[in-house]
């Protein structure tokens, strides 16, 4: 009886909340979008959510989360170089670089350099891969901080790089994010079965004479590109959460790779949308808000599954005792 009452009042609560939402729909949902800057940020956040969900699934199944974390930190020197040059008004006169945020291109360059450096160091297994990743990661990150520290007032700018600055996204940036996202998604779709094979059984891939090294570097490049594109949304230090958390949540729900990618993309973009509105209404930084929503989703799914298992186990035990008790008496 108490349970019924509790569900009723909960239901009323939801209804009342829904009424408020409908009445204040304009204030809640559409008003933030009237500002072009915010609309752009939301679009970028959704795209990045989809992209990091798809690429993050590959990162999760291959157990590459340390590599992804390291790579996101290693792009700092590239960002720092372009940052100094843009402050000095000395931006390379290349179409696309000139108009857009030059930091993006610096990040991409540094990401590619770090990728090949780690790939080169781990070749022939002279070093354990996590050792090689650690060395490159710490070295590049230190180089980046040293470079940024030469600029006055660097503390504020460093914060933006480390934790993201979604409001800094210009129209050109959005175009670049759209372009890169499309390319990365297309590559994943085209080479889906090859990526799956190489992730699950590299030995079979080699016996089938697939160019495994090529696909390994291609995947590293896709991860680097995803990180660079997501840089402005969540920043360097929270990048890992965007890649790992939605994919991990999806992996709890499904056991097929393509569903995992689709679900992770949905959950990533949902986290972006919810996190965006939460950050607007609660006046929280956008990057952390998105990551917190994604983490919350993971927590809910994990708890739900644990409870489900408990209930299933309980029912099983109950059935066992019911089956055995008549024979005992």
């Amino acid at each position, binding site marked *: 009886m108490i349970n019924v009452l509790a569900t009723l009042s909960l239901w009323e609560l939801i209804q009342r909340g829904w009424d408020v939402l409908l009445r204040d729909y304009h204030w809640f949902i559409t008003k933030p979008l009237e500002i072009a800057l915010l609309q752009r940020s939301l679009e970028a956040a959704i795209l990045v959510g989809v992209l990091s969900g798809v690429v993050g699934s590959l990162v999760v199944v291959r157990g590459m989360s340390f590599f992804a974390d390291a790579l996101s930190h290693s792009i700092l020197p590239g960002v720092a170089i372009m940052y100094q040059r843009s402050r000095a008004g000395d931006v390379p006169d290349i179409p696309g670089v000139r108009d857009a945020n030059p930091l993006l291109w610096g990040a991409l360059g540094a990401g590619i350099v770090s990728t090949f450096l780690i790939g080169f160091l781990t070749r022939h297994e002279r070093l354990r891969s996590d050792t090689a990743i650690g060395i490159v990661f710490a070295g590049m990150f230190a180089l980046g901080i040293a470079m940024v520290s030469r600029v006055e007032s660097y503390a504020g700018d460093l914060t933006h790089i480390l934790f993201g600055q979604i409001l800094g996204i210009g129209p050109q940036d959005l175009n670049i994010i759209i372009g890169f996202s499309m390319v990365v998604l297309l590559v994943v779709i085209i080479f889906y079965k090859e990526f*799956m094979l190489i992730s*699950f059984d590299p030995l*079979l891939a080699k016996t089938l004479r697939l160019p495994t090294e090529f696909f390994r570097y291609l995947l590293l490049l896709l991860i680097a590109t995803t990180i660079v594109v997501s840089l402005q949304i969540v920043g360097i230090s929270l990048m890992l959460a965007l890649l790992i958390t939605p994919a991990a949540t999806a992996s709890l729900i499904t056991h097929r790779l393509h569903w995992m990618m689709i679900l992770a993309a949905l959950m990533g973009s949902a986290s972006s949308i919810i996190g965006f509105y939460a950050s607007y209404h609660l006046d929280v930084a956008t990057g952390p808000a998105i990551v917190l929503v994604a983490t919350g989703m993971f927590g809910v799914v994990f708890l739900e599954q644990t409870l489900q298992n408990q209930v299933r186990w309980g029912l099983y035990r109950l059935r066992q005792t019911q089956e055995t008790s008549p024979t005992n008496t």
Partner: protein
Amino acid sequence: MKPAIAPEEVYPELAVYSDPITTIESLPMVVSEDVTPAIEVVNLTVRYGQVPGCEAIHFSAFPGERIAVIGPNGAGKSTLFKAMVGLLPMYSGSISVGGESCAASHFRVSYVPQHESVDWKFPANVWDVVMMSRTRHIGYFRAPRKADRQAVRDALEKVEMWHLRHRQIGQLSGGQRRRVFIARALAQKAAVLLMDEPFAGVDASAEAEIMGVLDTLRELKVTIIVSTHNLGQAAHHYDKVLMMNRQQIAFGPTAEVFNAKNLSRTFGGFLTVWQDQSPYTVIADDSCHEC
């Protein structure tokens, strides 16, 4: 386990045995004029740097034959398999598959890796895993076609796993997991199936289950080469035995080569063998208890 009776007392030839390691010329090779061997390994040596992995391995297997590779841990069984499937470069010697040079036909050899080296939590079901072996047949930029789906279905039906095709691979039993990998080799249309320790960590019923599938493969003329620790099984269920410990000790029909002399040389005297009339009885295996 120390035997009560020393092996020399049971087999006097063990005590006086002092021949050099068998040379290739003296091996009992099956000579067949009309059938091409499914796989022919000629004087194969594989080295890691200067360290030999396996040396002077020389044998051939015919379609439908089932061969056991036995030897202690570190004898180079996995090395041999990896070289046969093209994962390790050959230092010297050659391998031909179905009469062709192996460079063009390595994919006709299928390798089932050791159980521990597979990520069983990977988000893939039985169907996905078997379809993976069709990657080369499907080709780049293409989705699986009807022929590929049919091949996967046939393979799964042969190993009686079709009804479990939607299962995630981690939710399968030990015997079922091995059957999925056998189905994968079938879908690959492999002529030779190499299985690395398929019976490690499975119970007796799963072992019988896998053996049943291997019998089906024999009818399909697939050559099966299995590395195993289970000597009792090796004595009963295989046509031929390859004994190796870095070098090749013996190769030939089980009845001819599976004897105390060869076993003792393979396992370096740590193994003690009793042989009561017909069924082989193998007892005490010190070298394997250390690992």
